[in-house]
C-alpha cells in the first residue's frame, strides 16, 4: 500500500525544468527524506504535491486518488499538511493563534454559530487553545505561549510552523528544511520531534540539507539533481551510491 504516488511529474518555469519526469512512492508510517543541491527542485516538488503549483504534466496520487485540480485546502482536508522553507507565519496574530488556525478543519466553522458565538463555538475554541498549547510545548515553544508571532526569533518560528501543521492532524506531513538556520542543539530537538511524530503514525516527508539529521532519522531517501531522480533507497544505499557521492556529497561530506 502506498500513501503517495508520483508519476512522470514535470514542472517548468519558462525555460527552467524544475522537476523532470519524476516518479517515486511513499509508504505510510515512514520518514522519507528528499535531498539534493540548491535548486534541485525539492521545494517545487513540495509545492506540486500540496497543490500550491499545478504540474506541467504527470500525476500525483494521494491515497490512490489523483490530486489534480484540488486546491491546497482540499488536500489538507484529505490529510496533508506542510511547513515552508520561506516562513508563511501569520505575523498579524499571536503565536498560539497561529497554531489554532491549524485546528481549522477540526472546529465548527459555520458562519451563523460563529457570529452569535453559540456555546459550541466557545467550547471548541477552548479545546483548540488547549490542544495548541500542548503542541507548542511538544515542539519546544513553551516560552512563547503568550508571545506575538512577530516578536519571535527565526528558530522559534520554524517550530511554530511545525506545531501549526501538526494541529491539523495530517496523515502526511511535509517539512521543508525544518532545521535551516538552527544551531546544533536546536537541530537535535527538531530531530526528536520528527521522530516522535513519525512514531505516532504520521508519515513524514523531509527536505533537509543537514546530512547528519537526514542520515540519522530517514527510512528512505530520494536524491534529486536538476529536477531528476539521481538515486533512492535507504540511507546506507544512498550514502554509498557513487552518483550521489559525485554529484552531491562531493566526497567525504557525509
Amino acid at each position, binding site marked *: 500500500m502506498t500513501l503517495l504516488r508520483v508519476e512522470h511529474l514535470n514542472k517548468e518555469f519558462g525555460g527552467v525544468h524544475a522537476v523532470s519526469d519524476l516518479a517515486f512512492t511513499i509508504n505510510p508510517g515512514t520518514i522519507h527524506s528528499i535531498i539534493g543541491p540548491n535548486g534541485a527542485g525539492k521545494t517545487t516538488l513540495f509545492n506540486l504535491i500540496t497543490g500550491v503549483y499545478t504540474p506541467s504534466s504527470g500525476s500525483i496520487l494521494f491515497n490512490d486518488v489523483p490530486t489534480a485540480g484540488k486546491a491546497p485546502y482540499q488536500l489538507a482536508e484529505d490529510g496533508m499538511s506542510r511547513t515552508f522553507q520561506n516562513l508563511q507565519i501569520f505575523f498579524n496574530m499571536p503565536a498560539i493563534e497561529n497554531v489554532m488556525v491549524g485546528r*481549522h478543519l477540526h472546529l465548527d466553522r459555520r458562519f451563523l454559530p460563529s457570529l452569535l458565538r453559540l456555546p459550541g463555538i466557545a467550547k471548541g475554541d477552548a479545546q483548540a487553545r488547549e490542544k495548541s498549547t500542548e503542541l507548542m510545548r511538544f515542539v519546544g515553544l513553551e516560552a512563547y505561549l503568550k508571545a506575538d508571532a512577530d516578536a519571535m526569533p527565526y528558530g522559534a518560528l520554524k517550530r511554530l510552523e511545525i506545531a501549526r501543521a501538526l494541529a491539523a492532524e495530517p496523515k502526511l506531513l511535509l517539512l521543508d528544511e525544518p532545521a535551516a538556520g538552527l544551531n546544533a542543539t536546536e537541530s537535535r530537538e527538531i530531530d526528536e520531534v520528527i521522530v516522535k511524530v513519525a512514531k505516532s503514525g504520521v508519515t513524514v516527508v523531509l527536505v533537509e540539507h543537514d546530512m547528519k539529521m537526514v542520515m540519522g532519522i530517514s527510512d528512505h531517501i530520494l536524491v534529486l539533481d536538476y529536477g531528476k531522480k539521481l538515486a533512492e533507497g535507504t540511507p546506507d544505499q544512498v550514502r554509498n551510491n557513487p552518483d550521489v557521492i559525485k554529484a552531491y556529497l562531493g566526497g567525504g561530506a557525509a
Partner: protein
Amino acid sequence: MSGLSRWAGLGALAIFLAALPQALPNNYYVDVAVLACFNAIICVGLNLLIGYAGQISLGHAGFFGLGAYASAVLVNSYGWPPLLALLAGAAIVGLMAFAIARPVLKLKGHYLAMATLGIGIIISIVINTEAGITGGPDGIAAGPFSIGSFKLAGERDWYWLMAGLLLATVWLATNLVDSPVGRALRALHGSEVGAEVVGVDTARYKVMVFVVSAVIASVAGSLFAHYTPQLTPTKADFFKSIELVTMVVFGGMASTFGAIVGAAFLTMLPQVLTVFEDYEPVILGGIMMGTMIFMPKGLVPTIAALFNRRRP
C-alpha cells in the same frame, strides 16, 4: 481578544453610548452623534474586510449607496414598508457582492484597489445618471422610518436606534473575529498559502467577509435614506469610499474599537473644520497625511502599544 476583555470593551461602549445624550446640549450635536453611529457601523464591517482579512476596498460607499437608494426608491416610488425595503436592499447588495467577490478578490494589492474603486465609481455613475429612478444629482427622499404604526421621529429616537445597532454590530463583529471564521480571515491576511495548507478555503472566506461587510453597509445605507431629508449621490461616490477607508485606517486596522474611534473622529472633524471654511480640505488632507505618517498603525493600536510599554 480574550473573552473577558471583549465583554469589558462592549460594556464600556454600552455605558458610553447610554451616557452620551446627557452630554449633548442640543439636537445639532445629537445629529452628529447619529451620523457618527452610521459611519461607525459601516466601518466596523469594513474593518472586517480591510483590517482583519487584509483586503482593501475603495468602493464601499457604492454598497452603502445601493442600500440607501434601494430603500428610497422602493419606499418612495413603490410604497414598500421601510423594513421590507431594507431587507430587499440587503438581499440585492448581498447577492451582488457575492457575484462579484470571487473574481475580484482573486486580485491582490493595488489591482484589488483598482477593481473595487471601479465598482464603486460605476455604481455612483449609475445612481447619478438614472435620474428617472434615483432623482439624479438632486436626490430623492425616502420619508421617515416606520414599522407598522410606529414612526421614528427626531434625532433622539434615531440616536437610540443607531446606538443600539452599533452595539449589536460590535458584538457580532467581535464574536466573528474570535471564532474559527475570524481566525481564518486573519490568517489569510498573514499568509494565504499558509492558511490554505491547514485547510482554510481562502477564496470562500474572502467572499464571505466581502459580502458581510457589503450587507452591513447596505443596511446602514437603507436606514440612512430615512434619516437624511434628501438622499443624494454624493453618499455613494468615490470620496465617501475614501472617507470610510480613512476612518478605518485612522482608528486602527484590525481593531473593532479603533474603527469606532476613527469613524467618530472623522465625522466630527468636518464639523470642527467648518470654522476654517475654505481651508477645510487643506487641513483634512494634512491630518490624513500626518496621522498616517506618524501613526501608521492607527490611533487605537498606537495608544494601546504606548500603554502596554509603560505597564511592564
